[in-house]
């Protein structure tokens, strides 16, 4: 077997029965692996209308066919389930070594079903698999859990676990592997918590065979060279991390500020990658097989926020920074550290706090509601305090743990939530960058940037520059990026490889590893297929075309100042064409012939 291990590990947490079954190789060919293949399994086995936190939902850990190989920066895995935050199919991917270790242990997927009554963790050493009692680590944070479970198993084991936030079902809880790598979005950690599954601990020692070693080595060298020679993939991300984007987005007036009231933050440079490198960076860090090394090992010496940790990513620095009206990088790094330690998605956590600040300043949220706590824009101390309160569901944190949409709705003003399909949008103002707005509105997991990163062409000019303010050509651009990313995610690749390579190189790697010939067209078509499969799941879950929209603030209130002053999102000019080009009807439902064409009928 090449690329795929050919085995799925199934763990029923209710009956404690552990079984192994063969991977359906026809499905593997069509849906590749990771995000695609796991979504196919979810679609086949789970009713999309299921309560995400019920035992009927399933939780799948899935590396891709390129994970574990030396394909550059391609060692990732996806966690696929129905997300409790957005009610859509959730696929959150993460780097580090965990996904590759699952491959070495011999599995294309680990499927968890049912729910345990008492806390458990799964211990895998190749074909030996056992559920063990986790009551000793229940309640512990991510870092301590990781250390303790390694002490109980193997000191070199790879650990993916939840923190207190996942245990307490915070709707945007993450799953953390190797302490600092996050399957962050959509609340996959809460699903794990609902199943009383504290961790998955893996040691894998099996070889991964490659179908065509010669072609593989050649494809690796080509991809490596292109990524490493690219100014973003090879230089920018290692020097400054993803946080290099703060000053870039601010310079084009599209850095959402104070809960998206504005698109420009005058003191943003204090939060940028340049400042991070100069004042905090200890060294860059890379995930498994990575040639980019965007990870940041950092140190804060200010005693108030002192920590030795990793991060922050751009979206995190923006969220706890500009979106909360804060320019104190010490506090931002601390908030990021707490999110990793407690197991929270930084984007939803930060923007939910920003939403609370907005509601408070508007007088909608009062001191009576907050237990006397003033929650104002620019207050770094309160922001950091709220992160802990959310994870522990303490005081107002118990309500914030539901995410900004449910929180704002509770106070009668859901329009204060800067979210799509109840998931918070990240760090790119759709009023200033038209294509990303269309992507937010149509993304299969709601507010999310990593499934159609049109910021590349619209702002960075990669691979070619598009006018950020134009709507023409954007539907086609968004679709191309969404399809490419769906296929790319499904291989186990990191999105950042697209700073250097594209479908052609990925198809070559995939063909060489698996022995199944993928042309560039086959690869893109697989992406289209995966996208439509996810769409079908969401439609069946009741998340229909009426939710393909943006918050009113972005459609009606122009950006008040800065380089994108006066702009609003012109989503209505793009959405109908998007549906049409996708082969969907006016309500956003895929037409029968489209499903036929993609072998989804």
């Amino acid at each position: 077997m090449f690329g795929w291990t050919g085995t799925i590990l199934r763990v029923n947490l209710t009956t404690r029965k552990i079984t192994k079954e063969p991977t359906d190789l026809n499905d593997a060919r069509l849906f590749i692996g990771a995000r695609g293949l796991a979504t196919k399994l979810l679609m086949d086995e789970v009713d999309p209308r299921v309560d995400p936190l019920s035992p009927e939902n399933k939780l799948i850990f899935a590396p891709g066919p390129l994970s574990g190989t030396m394909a550059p920066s391609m060692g990732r895995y996806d966690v696929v389930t129905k997300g409790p935050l957005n009610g859509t199919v959730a696929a959150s991917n993460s780097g580090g070594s965990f996904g590759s270790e699952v491959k070495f242990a011999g599995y294309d997927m680990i499927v968890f079903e049912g729910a345990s009554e008492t806390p458990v963790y799964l211990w895998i050493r190749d074909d030996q698999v056992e559920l063990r009692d986790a009551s000793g680590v229940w309640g512990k944070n991510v870092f301590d859990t990781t250390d303790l479970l390694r002490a109980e198993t193997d000191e070199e084991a790879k650990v993916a676990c939840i923190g207190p936030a996942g245990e307490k079902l915070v709707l945007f809880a993450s799953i953390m592997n190797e302490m600092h790598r996050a399957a962050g979005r959509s609340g996959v950690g809460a699903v794990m918590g609902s199943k009383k599954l504290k961790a998955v601990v893996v040691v894998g020692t099996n070889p991964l065979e490659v179908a065509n070693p010669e072609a593989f080595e050649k494809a690796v060298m080509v991809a490596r060279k292109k990524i490493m020679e690219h100014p973003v993939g090879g230089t920018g991300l290692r020097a400054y991390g993803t946080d290099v984007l703060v000053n870039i987005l601010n310079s084009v007036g599209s850095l959402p500020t104070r809960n998206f009231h504005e698109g420009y933050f005058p003191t943003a440079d204090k939060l940028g990658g340049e400042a991070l490198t100069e004042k905090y960076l200890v060294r860059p860090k890379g995930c498994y097989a990575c040639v980019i090394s965007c990870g940041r090992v950092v140190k804060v010496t200010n005693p108030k926020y002192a920590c030795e940790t990793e991060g922050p990513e751009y979206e995190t620095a923006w969220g706890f920074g500009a979106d909360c009206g804060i320019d104190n990088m010490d506090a931002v790094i601390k908030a990021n550290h707490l999110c990793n330690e407690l197991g929270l998605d930084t984007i939803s956590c930060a923007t939910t706090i920003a939403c609370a600040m907005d509601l408070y300043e508007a007088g909608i949220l009062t001191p009576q509601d907050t237990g006397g706590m003033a929650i104002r824009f620019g207050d770094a101390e309160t922001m950091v305090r709220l992160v802990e309160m959310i994870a522990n569901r303490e005081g107002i944190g118990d309500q914030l743990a539901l995410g900004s949409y449910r929180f704002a709705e509770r106070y009668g003003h859901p329009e204060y939530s800067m979210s799509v399909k109840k998931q918070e949008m990240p760090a790119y103002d759709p009023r200033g960058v038209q294509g990303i707005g269309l992507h937010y509105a149509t993304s299969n997991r709601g507010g999310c940037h990593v499934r159609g990163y049109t910021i590349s062409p619209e702002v960075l000019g990669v691979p070619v520059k598009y006018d950020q303010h134009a709507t023409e050509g954007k539907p086609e651009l968004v679709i191309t990026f969404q399809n490419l990313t769906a296929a790319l995610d499904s291989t186990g690749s990191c999105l950042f490889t697209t700073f250097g390579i594209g479908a052609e190189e990925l198809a070559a790697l995939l063909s060489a590893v698996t022995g199944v010939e993928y042309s560039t067209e086959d690869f893109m078509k697989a992406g289209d297929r995966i996208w439509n499969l996810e769409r079908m799941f969401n439609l069946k879950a009741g998340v229909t075309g009426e939710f393909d929209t943006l918050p009113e603030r972005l459609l009606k209130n122009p950006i008040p100042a800065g380089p994108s002053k006066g702009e609003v999102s012109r989503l209505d000019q793009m959405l109908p064409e998007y549906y049409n080009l996708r082969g969907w009807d006016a309500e956003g439902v895929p037409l029968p012939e489209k499903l036929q064409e993609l072998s989804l009928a």
Partner: protein
Amino acid sequence: MAKIIMIHPDKCTGCKNCVLACSFKKEQRIRPAASRIHVYSWEREGISVPMMCQQCNDAPCVSVCPTGAMNRRFGETLVNYDAAKCIRCRMCVQACPFGNAIYDSVTDSIMKCDTCEGDPACVAACPVHAIEYIEESISTRSRKKAFAQKFKEAFQEVA
């Protein structure tokens, strides 16, 4: 001049490209256990250290080898391993103070770095030059100079 593989843990990102390249070169597949180089990472501190055969001058593996399978050819830096002479007694495994000679049950042989005959795959694969294959004298000079630089800076501050 003698060349050695020099590691710089301060630059290592923990990506393990060296491990993958080594195992692929040796077996044309991916099996980290077959790699002659291993990387250990400390997640809390964010530090990674690559480990491989040091090609010791006074090599314990050569001293204890009863058959001459572990040997050093005259005038060479490399500690040579001859599988044909090896009786798999694993004395070298026990003698190596670094744990860099490993017995592999899959191939029934001792795994230790042979510098890929002077063209080490790990060095070529490292994206950040945390492993280098360089002249011994240059490697020590650059390290000494880096330390001297710290002295220089300290003196400049005092002055």
